[in-house]
């Protein structure tokens, strides 16, 4: 089922929650809404679900205006950050509940629930009481309910936020596959750029109630349309600084200069904004190529995140973060070299619009 938001807004008590928004999600696609807390992700999901009515504009499902269709007639399923299950039901009854509402026969119900439980590794627990299971299992039950319903639209509101690290990683990989098989259109809200990257599919970046950019996840990661989108879609945060373009050179004052990329050639000379993701500032020049330029900086802090090191550097007047694989202990105050990948440089004009 395709979903279209046509110029919808949401205003509550005079406060704008959603600015006029247009969005077209194609049938059977996996879509991610990425934005910080309070950027309007949940409100957008609720508007799609019909739990809230837009202040203006329309919601269309598969070419039909459903703005005034009630929630239960929209054939949707929703999974929340909290683990929402029927507290008194067994695992089986919980998963079976949408089928019972749909009036399926006991045999059909048993078969469907069995399949889904197998898929989500819940078969062992079907007789158990929900409250006796772990958080990860409870959320699997909620996901199973959403899957078994075979809803045309599945809305997931940060479903993995309350799970522990390992389960989160595992489900991030499994979810797109599970939903691809079910044939539902999926909208997945998250505040974590890494999660959005792993889930892949399409992405809409949100900033303060506005959709900044929508498109294929990899495209948007590589070529954010503007500074806001780049900032939302970067973890650790993208390094931002001012550079000066003059003729065919770009200068980072007091640090380095390098040739101007072709797409940038015909722009007028002057100040521009450079954005460079931490992993494009690496400790080693692996490719030994001219695409990398050497910059030296002063170590402010060295932290280890997973299997990578984040080195906070003071480079001339800028505080930058460099991300490299492996564990690299440095002492604070040490001067080290990092290599900036020129292919990773994103340029923006004064209004934050990307140049590419």
């Amino acid at each position, binding site marked *: 089922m395709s979903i279209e938001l046509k110029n919808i807004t949401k205003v509550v008590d005079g406060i704008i929650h959603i600015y006029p928004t247009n969005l077209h999600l194609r049938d059977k696609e996996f879509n991610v809404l990425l934005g910080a807390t309070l950027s309007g992700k949940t409100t957008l999901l609720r508007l799609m679900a019909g*739990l809230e009515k837009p202040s203006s504009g329309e919601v269309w499902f598969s070419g039909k205006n459903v703005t005034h269709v009630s*929630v239960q007639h929209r054939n*949707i399923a929703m999974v*929340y950050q909290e683990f929402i299950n029927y*507290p008194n039901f067994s695992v089986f009854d919980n998963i079976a*509940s*949408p089928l019972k509402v749909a009036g399926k026969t006991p045999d059909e119900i048993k078969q469907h629930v069995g399949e889904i439980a197998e898929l989500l590794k819940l078969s062992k627990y079907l007789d158990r009481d929900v409250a006796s299971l772990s958080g990860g299992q409870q959320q699997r039950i909620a996901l199973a309910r959403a899957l078994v319903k075979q809803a045309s639209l599945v809305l997931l509101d940060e479903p993995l936020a309350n799970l522990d690290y390992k389960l989160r990683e595992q489900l991030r990989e499994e979810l797109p596959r599970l939903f691809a098989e079910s044939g539902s259109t999926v909208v997945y809200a998250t505040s974590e750029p890494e999660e959005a990257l792993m889930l892949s599919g399409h992405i809409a970046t949100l900033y303060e109630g506005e959709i900044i950019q929508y498109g294929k996840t990899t495209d948007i990661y590589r070529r954010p349309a503007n500074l806001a989108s780049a900032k939302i879609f970067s973890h650790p945060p993208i390094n931002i600084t001012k550079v000066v373009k003059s003729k065919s050179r770009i200068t980072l004052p007091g640090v380095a200069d390098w040739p101007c990329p072709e797409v940038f050639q015909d722009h007028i000379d002057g100040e521009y904004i450079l954005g460079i993701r931490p992993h494009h500032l690496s400790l080693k020049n692996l490719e030994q190529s001219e695409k990398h330029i050497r910059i030296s900086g002063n170590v402010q802090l060295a932290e280890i995140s997973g299997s990578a090191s984040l080195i906070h550097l003071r480079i001339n007047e800028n505080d930058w973060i460099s991300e490299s694989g492996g564990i690299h202990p440095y002492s604070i105050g040490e001067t080290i070299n990092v290599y900036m990948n020129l292919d990773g440089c994103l340029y923006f004009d004064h209004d934050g619009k990307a140049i590419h």
Partner: protein
Amino acid sequence: MIIKTVKQTAWFFVVPVVLLVAFNALIPLMTVVNYAFQETFGDNVFFWEGLTWFEQVLNSDRFHDAFLRQIMFTSIILLIEVPLGIVIALSMPRKGPWVSVCLVLMALPLLIPWNVVGAMWNIFALPDIGLLGYTLNSIGIDYNFTQQPVSAWITTILMDVWHWTSLVVLLAYAGLSAIPEAYYQAAKIDGASRWAVFKWIQLPKMKRVLTIAILLRFMDSFMIYTELIVLTGGGPGNSTTLLSIDLVKLALGQFDLGPAAAMSLIYFFIVLLICWVFYTLMMKNEQQ
């Protein structure tokens, strides 16, 4: 061989609590036990009676009647107050300025001294001058709680419901407030009816607080004294003489200290036993 070092000083820290409990519970209780097994004619002279008083109390029609009345009273008020409390809690607003207004209104009856509650209802229900009694009689209903057992029972139950439903309401409301909004949304998406939401989400989520509410209301109603002695004094006749009133009549009215002490102990063990059974059943249910 295992050698344990025992620090005897630890016992020292328990002494204050032991003393406190001894003085406010154990020693008074022991005097009751003392009276329950002996006969006294004053001057601190005691004669051993063994289980005589217990047999006498347990075999008396008077105790049986009071006990049955007590069971009836407690059952009726539980059957009214618990469902009524849930209904009121469900219909209270969950956010906005009216929440605090409702909560304060609900808490008011709980803040009134118990004897004042009795006095209020006594005056309110008087057939000649009371608002309730006068109104009922003037529309042709023969109502007189000082003369008719049925009227007395209705008044007593009305008073208890007025006084204590708030407790159930406040506890149930607290239980309802703890249910995340997402549950209601999920139910809405599933197309659940109002009744289904209550049965499958709200009631199970309120189970814990309702257990506490029922337990508290059971214990308090089983030991009701102050409001009742002011309202009816146990009358007309013995019709509203519940266990506690009967006990006071026996101990202070007739000065039968032995049987009264024995009855106190029986009374105490009945409350303890029912609470224990009730609690065990509830907890067993919880674990399943």
